[in-house]
């Protein structure tokens, strides 16, 4: 019996705008001026929020957080392609998209300074809170996608973000398998930023690409220049259209780079070279997109100056508001253990409040 070939698989790579600003006009997505500027503003805002938070963190005015500098296009591109009906299911390095989906800078600050009040976007915003355990949010997105299909919402899909490290988790593989079987309207976006804390992409998986992991699930997999906003937008847009049409999920590998530390508690000098980081700064997604806008004649130095001023004011207003906020209810965690009232919880709340009152009394006496 001759051996027959029964499958034929390949993975494509998409880039529309390269790091030198060269544009492939055939692949260029149709985006109006308003959309283009919205995307640019979102990237600049995210970069500035990131850098401001870094300073605040170093001054002890902000908790630990995961910087997003360098990865803005990989998140802003897909978020621009989404509508309000789509679900944003993220891990912890998607702040640029969260801010586009309605989260305020103040909420971001509250979240990263240790208050659940930062997670108070309503379910109607279809934007899930940050998920910290790596890859664990993937099945949630798949279940949401199933629900959209079940409820007959034909123009809604789940867009699920995770990192290169996330592809090693069982939840990634189980999630892709379920999504493919269910023909669920889901778009998986792997932000391959090359580093899972100190473990490089090369030690995360022997696979040539992460996109090819889709092939095992008979799912479309595609690798994209994750620092190219136009490519990220275009590929996500197509994946969403396929999802709405019932053509199944897509895995998008966004090749990007984490220019900063994993979190503010990490020192990347211990495990990677400065030369490597400098090489990736040359592929920064923001200057190349700015150049694109300038060449299109919709951006100039004056508009840049206005934008920078406006963003600076917005961030400083949020810093001020955040630092004046002191009315966090101490016993709020007792309010939200269950959706029903229970004696045991109320009794422990009483205990907690009595203890707190005692402490305050002592402090007052010592003052």
């Amino acid at each position: 019996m001759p051996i027959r070939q029964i499958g034929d698989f390949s993975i494509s790579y998409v880039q529309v705008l390269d790091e030198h600003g060269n544009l492939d006009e055939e692949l260029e997505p149709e985006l109006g001026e308003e959309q283009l500027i919205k995307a640019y503003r979102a990237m600049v805002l995210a970069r500035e929020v990131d850098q401001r938070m870094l300073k605040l963190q170093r001054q002890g005015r902000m908790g630990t957080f995961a910087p997003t500098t360098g990865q803005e296009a990989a998140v802003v591109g897909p978020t621009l392609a989404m509508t309000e009906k789509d679900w944003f299911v993220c891990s912890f390095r998607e702040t640029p998209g969260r801010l586009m989906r309605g989260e305020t800078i103040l909420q971001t600050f509250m979240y990263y300074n240790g208050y659940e009040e930062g997670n108070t976007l309503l379910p109607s915003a279809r934007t899930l809170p940050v998920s910290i355990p790596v890859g664990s949010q993937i099945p949630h997105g798949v279940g949401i996608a199933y629900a959209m299909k079940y409820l007959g919402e034909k123009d809604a899909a789940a867009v699920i973000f995770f990192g290169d490290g996330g592809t090693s988790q069982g939840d990634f593989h189980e999630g892709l398998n379920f999504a493919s079987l269910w023909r669920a309207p889901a778009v998986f976006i792997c932000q391959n930023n090359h580093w899972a804390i100190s473990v490089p992409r090369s030690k995360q998986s022997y696979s040539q690409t992460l996109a090819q992991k889709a092939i095992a699930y008979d799912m479309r997999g595609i690798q994209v220049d994750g620092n190219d906003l136009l490519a990220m937008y275009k590929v996500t847009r197509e994946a969403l259209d396929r999802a709405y049409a019932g053509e199944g999920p897509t895995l998008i590998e966004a090749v990007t780079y984490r220019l900063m530390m994993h979190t503010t508690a990490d020192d990347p000098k211990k495990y990677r070279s400065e030369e490597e980081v400098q090489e990736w700064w040359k592929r920064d997604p923001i200057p190349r997109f700015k150049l694109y806008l300038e060449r299109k004649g919709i951006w100039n130095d004056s508009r840049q100056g206005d934008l920078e001023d406006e963003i600076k004011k917005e961030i400083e207003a949020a810093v001020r508001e955040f630092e004046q906020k002191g009315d966090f209810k101490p016993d709020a965690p007792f309010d939200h253990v269950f959706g029903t009232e229970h004696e045991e919880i109320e009794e422990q709340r009483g205990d907690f409040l009595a203890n707190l009152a005692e402490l305050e009394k002592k402090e007052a006496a010592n003052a």
Partner: protein
Amino acid sequence: MPKINMVQALNLALDQEMAKDDRVVLLGEDVGLDGGVFRVTDGLFDKYGEERVIDTPIAESAIYGSAIGMALAGLKPVAEMQFSGFSYYLLHQLESHASRFRSRTQGRWSVPLVVRMPYGGAVRALEHHSESREATFAHFPGVKVVIPSTPRNARALLTASIRDPDPVIFMEPKRSYRAFREEVPEEEEVVEIGKAKVVQDGNDLTVVAWGAMMRPTLKAVAAVQEKRGVSIELIDLLTIAPMDGNTIVRSVEKTGRCVVVQEAPRSFSVAAEIIAKINDKVLLSLEAPVKRVTHYDVVTPYFGRELMYIPDVGRIIRGIDETLDF
């Protein structure tokens, strides 16, 4: 009222909730065409279709994780773990997400999600099919753990669980699935989650049990009452977490003596928690130390020896006698 067994009673609860609310969907291994390996979902696939009774791949973490997503998107999923022994893959989703969404978002989001799982021994099953690990689940804040003991309360508690706004771990004593029948009303019935039930009043001693332990405990209590002419108060816990400590405490305050019967190993257990609650509130009412009649702190033995390890009528009687005689 028809007399039905626990499997039929659970099926009735699922059927009625599905008929009433098309947001209720079932998912799990073999729950569809096969009707579940214990037949709890029998007939529902034919009645409601494959979109609502979903046969999933064998991946417990994704079954529970995707059910979390369904709940977040407005459905009321009822997931099945084929056996509690295979449910541990869901623990990270339970601890990391299902239990926390409400608190994490200060009540903006919730995860109304039931996962049913047969638990417990004495059915001559292979390894991993006989454990009683309710304390493990009960230790996660934000999680409700419910264990019925009869067909009627199984039906009413499952109905309440499906309507509950929080994640519920619904543990079904598989030993009791077909062991006996009980009259179960056709019309809807719910039992409030978080409340224990005083099954019989008494003055001389309190016995607390739940799930599959209720049957041998009832027999033991009847035997001791008959033999010694004492009156024993019997409490069926029904909800493990959040625990209805006050019902137990009030009873022990009256009787002064207490025996807890549990199928699970002794240390770090629900019985230990019951004793802590008694000590907190009514220590000085006690006439005797609270007795635990339990499995031992050993890995569940294979079924050749299992009956020697699970509390039986004889051990429960001895526990009650010792506590009365102290």
